[in-house]
């Protein structure tokens, strides 16, 4: 390929390289802002494409059903989170031709690129589960994983006067795997507050063989469920949701009855990924090297956040930690330098447990969540309920808009997982 083919002439007559970022959510926004700072000259053009202008602060979705925040408080303009010198295109993506380095857009135009960053997150695929969107959907079967669902569930919880409430994860992967557990904890708190807890039977139904994937955290979280009177049904692979009769039916024929079901639907990658030959896997996620975030299919393609097929949680903290390495690798790729392979799968989640308390977990590809303190021995308590963690979770929302999205480092929170302060010896 000649150098000319890689360059574009900007309006100022300068030969520039173009980085196209698909998705203006957490990963796309922080990547664009960091890249703009890393490559301040006008020889690099940065274009962000998204089909709408609604940037949702997704951790806030958990609080909407319980009236702790309102859906309007967690949505802002995508365009306004992007710094000067970044072009925003409000248009759906039709498909990507990774062989020709061209994005085909929904308005019939094309956008060629030197480097592509797939940051289009994951989407809910409710229709893949039999009956889920059938009778009872949005009447007694809800999800809080999107803004409309969370708001509708708020009304349903306000009107709920007792009965069986089940929280069901259909199958992994899902965004923020701890959120459905947090929903259970907050539901326990919510019904105690309104004085009907004794009339509500809470059940958590999961396809996993425990409350969570990692043994030490699974044990701690199962203990919390028990303490709060939430029944746990494991290895339940939901095959059908029968809204009219009020029952979840597993593929192996087991049933769990409900009066109100809160279902976390199956997730997949953005729909254009499936229309782009060679780009994604069977579920529409983009397979990338787990340490460099470079696509296995094409060296000028990268993925970040929920869109990336890497073996760690789909969570904003992961996206944040990936950001620093991703932008450096895009820069290095364009400069012809070897990539930085240091992403370690670092994940950090506050787990709201109700009554003004929260737990904190911190882990990576190799180390499961352990007790101790974060980020050092005098920091926030890990795997233990505390008011400090709850305050940390609340404080995170302003940090998200004003530090994380603009691409600044958060004080005391590094990209690599810290080990200082953790009780490594407590691993069984």
């Amino acid at each position, binding site marked *: 390929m000649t150098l000319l083919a890689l360059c574009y002439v900007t309006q100022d007559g300068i030969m520039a390289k173009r980085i196209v970022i698909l998705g203006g959510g957490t990963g796309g926004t922080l990547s664009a802002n960091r890249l703009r700072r890393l490559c301040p000259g006008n020889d690099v053009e940065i274009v962000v494409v998204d089909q709408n202008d609604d940037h949702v602060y997704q951790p806030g979705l958990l609080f909407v059903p319980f009236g702790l925040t309102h859906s309007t408080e967690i949505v802002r303009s995508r365009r306004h989170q992007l710094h000067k010198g970044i072009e925003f295109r409000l248009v759906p993506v039709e498909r990507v031709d990774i062989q020709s380095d061209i994005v085909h857009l929904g308005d019939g135009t094309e956008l060629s690129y030197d480097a592509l960053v797939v940051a289009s997150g994951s989407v809910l695929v409710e229709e893949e589960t039999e009956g889920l969107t059938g009778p009872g959907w949005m009447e007694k079967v809800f999800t809080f994983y999107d803004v409309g669902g969370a708001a509708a569930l708020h009304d349903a919880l306000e009107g709920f006067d007792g009965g069986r409430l089940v929280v069901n994860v259909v*199958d992994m992967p899902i965004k923020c795997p701890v959120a459905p557990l947090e929903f259970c904890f907050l539901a326990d708190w919510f019904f105690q507050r309104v004085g009907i807890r004794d009339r509500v039977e809470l059940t958590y139904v999961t396809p996993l063989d425990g409350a969570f994937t*990692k043994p030490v955290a699974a044990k701690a979280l199962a203990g919390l469920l028990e303490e709060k009177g939430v029944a746990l049904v494991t290895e339940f692979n939901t095959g059908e949701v029968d809204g009219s009769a009020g029952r979840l039916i597993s*593929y*192996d024929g087991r049933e769990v009855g409900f009066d109100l079901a809160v279902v976390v639907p199956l997730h997949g990658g953005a729909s254009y990924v499936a229309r782009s030959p060679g780009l994604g*896997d069977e579920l529409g996620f983009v397979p990338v090297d787990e340490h460099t975030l470079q696509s296995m299919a094409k060296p000028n393609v990268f993925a970040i956040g929920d869109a990336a097929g890497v073996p760690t949680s789909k969570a904003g903290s992961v996206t944040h930690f990936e950001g620093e390495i991703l932008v450096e690798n895009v820069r290095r790729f364009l400069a012809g330098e070897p990539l930085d392979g240091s992403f370690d799968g670092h994940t950090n989640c506050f787990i709201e447990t109700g009554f003004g308390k929260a737990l904190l977990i911190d882990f990576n590809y190799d180390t499961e969540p352990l007790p101790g303190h974060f980020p050092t021995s005098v920091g926030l308590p890990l795997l233990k309920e505390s008011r400090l963690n709850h305050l940390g979770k609340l404080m995170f929302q302003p940090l998200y808009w004003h530090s994380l999205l603009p691409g600044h480092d958060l004080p005391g929170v590094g990209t690599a997982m810290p080990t200082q302060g953790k009780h490594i010896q407590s691993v069984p």
Partner: protein
Amino acid sequence: MSSAIYGGTTVEVNDEGFFEDPGKWTEAMAPEIAKAQGIDVLTEHHWQVIKFMRAEYIEKGSGPTVRVLGKTSGVSIKELYQLFPKGPAKTAAKIAGIPKPRGCI
């Protein structure tokens, strides 16, 4: 770690019964592993899934999850549960001598 004897050969398996070294597996061991999982006879359909799991593992380094198996193996999730009632991905991986499918985290 412990060991198990299949087809007269001793192999190392982990605490959940998955092969430590998938290279030690032979087709002749499969019926015996299946019996221990409550599957008395391996039909052609079982074999279709077992061979698919193994091929995917060799290509990608991890066996597929149930959902991916339903999309790619040519056998629907409902049928997969009829074949492997205790959980298709886990049971078929065990019989195919590959590690537990890396479910997502």
